[in-house]
């Protein structure tokens, strides 16, 4: 390519050319003088003979130019002049677009991290985790993991990790941390390098507690060690055991679970020092998250699954007590599918809505540009008449549209990058290390640029037909008033579309918010009102074995003495709080061999004291609650929920008095049936649950008190804290209302409501500007006519109907269409937001009122202007 040097040579070429032409004219003039002409006359004659020098030079230069680029530059300068001339228009357009593109970039940023690029490690494409196909959960026990690692032929290596909470003491300020306990090969499987120091490796594992090393995450190092590079080699206490800090992970690496970043990594072989017990040797205790690794090159998914399945069969045959038959599925490491599925669907849904916003913005700008092109039709006509090509004029208009869209895109991107940065460091639950993965990257920038260009083209082509049809003669003749036809124009259609889109957004945001409100008031299987929950870490405070029971009784007794407390009960974990509970496999009574392949169902297990049902407000439908008689030596009993009864016994009526078995083979008799409820998440499908007497199960590490009282929560919590601390000053406590405790379970629904609310608001703003633009334009075009009508005695409402009827009609049609679409779209929402149903009079009325308000706001100013039209003034203007 020789155009690159030619750009630099060009100046010299042009100079040569000018000089050459100058000399040419001189030579001619000299010759003419030689023929006897006067000097002055000779120069004039020489110039005439030469022709139009400027044009010649221009044409000669064009030879060297990159024609498209340079005339585009000219277009750009012209467009910039145009934009400067109407700053209001430009600002509106840029602002509208920056909102729309910003919203898209933010949603895309999250989508990017969750769906497109969940883990930012080398070769992430071949990195897979496996989980069981049925449950969509991939927990494995450590011995099973070792078998999978040793026996599989599909993965290059398999890494695994578990999450634990511990206290890290670096000398001054012990802090509670979340740690990944990882296999030694964890970092090597991921293929990442430390930011500082070194990582531990497979070779460091030489049996239990052989690798007392800790690797800090960058953010923990940054916040707790103040970026001290001397930290490497320092010995810290993790749960009172010495561990050596050997390295710091790179800043971008936040563990292998999305949404959940740890503070540090420790080798899992040292688990016994951090978590009590000897779970590394228990094949039935599934402490590990989905093991993951790189698939070997050339190994297909089917081959890998067959390989895993054969190992599964081997495990089932060898360890029938612990391992059942499983089908496996390969998933992206990061989070299990049961969670990822709805999340992806939701983010994809948000992306769709954001896309709709952009489309609405384009429709909006398209009609603005069309209106502007109509106002400029005289200019266009003049240029056409003077011989400009239509192509040239269109390119000019498109350049203007693209400039606006790029400016809007840049502004939107800027805002979105700031938002995404904030979002990625945002921790909605300070105690839970939850974070939203959203750091912007090249993908986001590219997407924003692409969207900007695309939208520029979209609204840029709206006026094209108008220009192509323009007949210069007609336009110039018609004068500035033009005609305001009664036909349905493309602009009306665009506006209807835009309002429909906005109505969709408004509808879905209302559905989400309403669903959220209803889920808090709805039937959860317990009564949130007047209920406090208090989590007590018995084990951390040193209570184990027999002492647990005694402490539990003393705490219950103490809480009961607080004035105003009606009920106090114990539970291992209240529903919807702190994860919602844990699950257990149960078997039918007739099952001889309680092994995994015979499991009748997996159920939630709640270990409760006898007062629980009254304290929690859970209705007992039949049978009895537990009593003091259901103790350790009494026959094992259970209260089950309706779903449990249906699954194991076929119906609720059959269940009472019947038996089922738990994993250890114990037969439990059903003595009562409790109402169904929500346990993990609001939007879960109905789960079976069983309640067992807390005295018939083993001592708990932590227990929750459920306290029912009509008192104000804050002083009640203070009283509870004082009473419990009086029993043991060092008791780790967490006291909150049950509603507050559900923050985590409500998080998805809240996020959904916030996201949709913001999008709905954007949609509303867009419809206001859209309708306003149309109404204002119509009024300004017909101001004279309106003035005359008023002069002839038209009533105010007649004038308004003439001025705004069209805008309002468009609004009505668009809203109706959008409402219907929004109702259809809301089905997707039901996955995220419990009780999100659009068949709700509140939602329907809300949308109608909202759209009416939008119409009112948008047409207020144009209506005022129409009413104040003064015929005399207007006539004088002409």
């Amino acid at each position, binding site marked *: 390519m020789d155009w690159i040097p030619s750009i630099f040579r060009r100046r010299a070429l042009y100079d040569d050319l000018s000089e050459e032409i100058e*000399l040419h004219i001189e030579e*001619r003039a000299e010759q003419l003088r030689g023929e006897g002409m006067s000097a002055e006359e000779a120069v004039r004659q020489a110039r005439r*003979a030469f*022709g*139009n020098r400027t044009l*010649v030079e221009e*044409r000669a230069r*064009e*030879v060297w130019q990159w*024609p498209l680029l340079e005339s585009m530059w000219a277009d750009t300068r012209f467009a910039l002049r145009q934009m400067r001339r109407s700053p209001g228009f430009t600002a509106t357009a840029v602002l509208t677009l920056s909102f729309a593109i910003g919203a898209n970039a933010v949603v895309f940023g999250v989508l990017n991290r969750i769906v497109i690029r969940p883990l930012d490690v080398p070769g992430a494409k071949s990195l897979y985790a496996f989980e069981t196909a049925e449950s969509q959960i991939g927990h494995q026990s450590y011995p099973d993991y070792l078998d999978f690692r040793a026996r599989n032929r599909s993965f290059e290596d398999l890494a695994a990790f578990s999450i634990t909470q511990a206290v890290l003491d670096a000398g001054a300020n012990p802090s509670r941390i979340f740690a990944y306990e990882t296999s030694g090969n964890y970092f090597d499987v991921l293929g990442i390098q430390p930011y500082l120091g070194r990582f531990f490796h497979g070779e460091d594992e030489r049996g239990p507690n052989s690798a007392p090393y800790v690797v800090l995450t960058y953010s923990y190092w940054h916040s707790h060690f103040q970026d001290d590079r001397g930290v490497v080699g320092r010995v810290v206490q993790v749960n009172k055991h010495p561990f050596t800090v050997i390295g710091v992970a790179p800043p971008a690496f936040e563990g292998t679970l999305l949404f959940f970043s740890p503070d540090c990594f420790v080798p899992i072989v040292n688990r016994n020092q951090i978590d009590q017990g000897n779970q590394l040797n228990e094949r039935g205790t599934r402490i590990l998250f989905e093991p993951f690794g790189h698939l070997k090159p050339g190994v297909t998914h089917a081959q890998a699954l067959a390989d895993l399945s054969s190992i599964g069969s081997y495990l089932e045959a060898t360890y029938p007590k612990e391992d059942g038959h499983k089908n496996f599925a390969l998933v992206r490491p990061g989070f299990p599918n049961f969670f990822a599925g709805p999340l992806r669907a939701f983010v994809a849904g948000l992306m769709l809505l954001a896309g709709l916003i952009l489309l609405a913005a384009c429709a909006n700008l398209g009609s603005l540009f069309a209106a502007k092109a109509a106002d400029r039709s005289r200019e266009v006509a003049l240029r056409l008449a003077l011989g400009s090509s239509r192509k040239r004029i269109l390119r000019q208009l498109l350049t203007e549209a693209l400039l606006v869209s790029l400016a809007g895109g840049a502004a939107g991107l800027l805002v979105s990058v700031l938002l995404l940065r904030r979002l990625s460091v945002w921790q909605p639950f300070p105690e839970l290390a939850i974070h939203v993965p959203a750091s912007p990257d090249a993908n986001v920038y590219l997407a924003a640029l692409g969207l900007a260009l695309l939208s520029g083209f979209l609204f840029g082509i709206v006026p094209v037909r108008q220009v192509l049809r323009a007949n210069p003669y007609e336009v110039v003749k018609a004068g500035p008033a033009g005609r305001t036809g009664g036909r349905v124009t493309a602009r009306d259609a665009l506006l209807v579309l835009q309002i429909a889109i906005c109505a969709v957004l408004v509808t879905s945001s209302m559905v989400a918010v309403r669903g959220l409100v209803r889920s808090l008031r709805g039937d959860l299987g317990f009564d949130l009102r007047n209920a406090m929950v208090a989590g007590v870490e018995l084990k951390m405070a040193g209570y184990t074995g027999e002492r647990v029971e005694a402490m539990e009784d003393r705490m219950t007794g103490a809480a009961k003495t607080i004035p105003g407390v009606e009920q106090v009960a114990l539970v291992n974990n209240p529903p919807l709080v702190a994860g919602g509970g844990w699950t257990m496999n149960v078997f039918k009574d007739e099952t001889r061999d309680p092994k995994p392949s015979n499991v009748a169902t997996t159920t939630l297990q709640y270990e409760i004291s006898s007062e629980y049902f009254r304290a929690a407000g859970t209705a007992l439908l039949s049978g009895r609650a537990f009593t003091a008689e259901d103790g350790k030596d009494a026959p094992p009993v259970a209260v089950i929920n309706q779903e449990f009864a249906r699954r194991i016994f076929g119906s609720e009526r059959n269940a009472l008095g019947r038996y089922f078995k738990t994993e250890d083979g114990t037969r439990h008799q059903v003595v009562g049936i409790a109402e169904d409820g929500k346990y993990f998440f609001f939007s879960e499908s109905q789960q079976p649950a069983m309640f067992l007497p807390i005295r018939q199960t083993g001592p708990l590490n932590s227990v929750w008190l459920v306290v029912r009282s009509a008192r104000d929560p804050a002083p009640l919590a203070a009283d509870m804290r004082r009473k419990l601390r009086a029993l043991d000053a060092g008791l780790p406590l967490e006291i909150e209302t049950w509603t507050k405790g559900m923050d985590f379970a409500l998080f998805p629904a809240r996020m959904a409501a916030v996201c949709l609310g913001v999008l709905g608001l954007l949609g509303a703003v867009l419809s206001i500007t859209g309708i306003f633009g149309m109404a204002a334009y119509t009024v300004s075009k017909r101001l004279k006519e309106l003035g005359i009508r008023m002069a002839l005695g038209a009533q105010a409402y007649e004038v308004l109907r003439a001025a705004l009827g069209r805008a309002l009609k468009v609004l009505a049609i668009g809203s109706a269409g959008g409402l219907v679409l929004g109702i259809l779209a809301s089905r997707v929402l039901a996955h995220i937001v419990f009780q999100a149903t659009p068949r709700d009079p509140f939602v329907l009325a809300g949308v109608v009122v909202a759209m009416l308000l939008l119409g009112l706001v948008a047409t207020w100013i144009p209506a005022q202007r129409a009413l104040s039209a003064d015929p005399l003034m207007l006539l004088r203007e002409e």
Partner: protein
Amino acid sequence: MPNTNTNPRDLFPGALEMMILESLRRQPAHGYALVQHIQQRSNNLLQVEEGSLYPALQRLLKAKLVKAEWGISATNRRVRTYQITASGLRRLEEQISSFEQMFEGIALVLKARQSPAS
């Protein structure tokens, strides 16, 4: 490339370039001399506007069919002298032969129109 900006007095696109190449084949020349040469050779039948020569020269320069050099003329003037290149010569041969074919074709058509009348 905009190839449409030929002067109305050009007979057809490329004719001016062909004449320039032909002139330069005989001897190198600067712009002014080229104009003189073409006008004289055509017995002033082709009134080439002097300026229109320069865009054509730039096109030839860009296509590397000619090369230019600043120097001093016989009349002691500073001039930029153009010289035909090897590829310029090749192009000239091609153009002349295609021009002759075209001319022949045109001549045949014109004759065909005349013959029934005669």
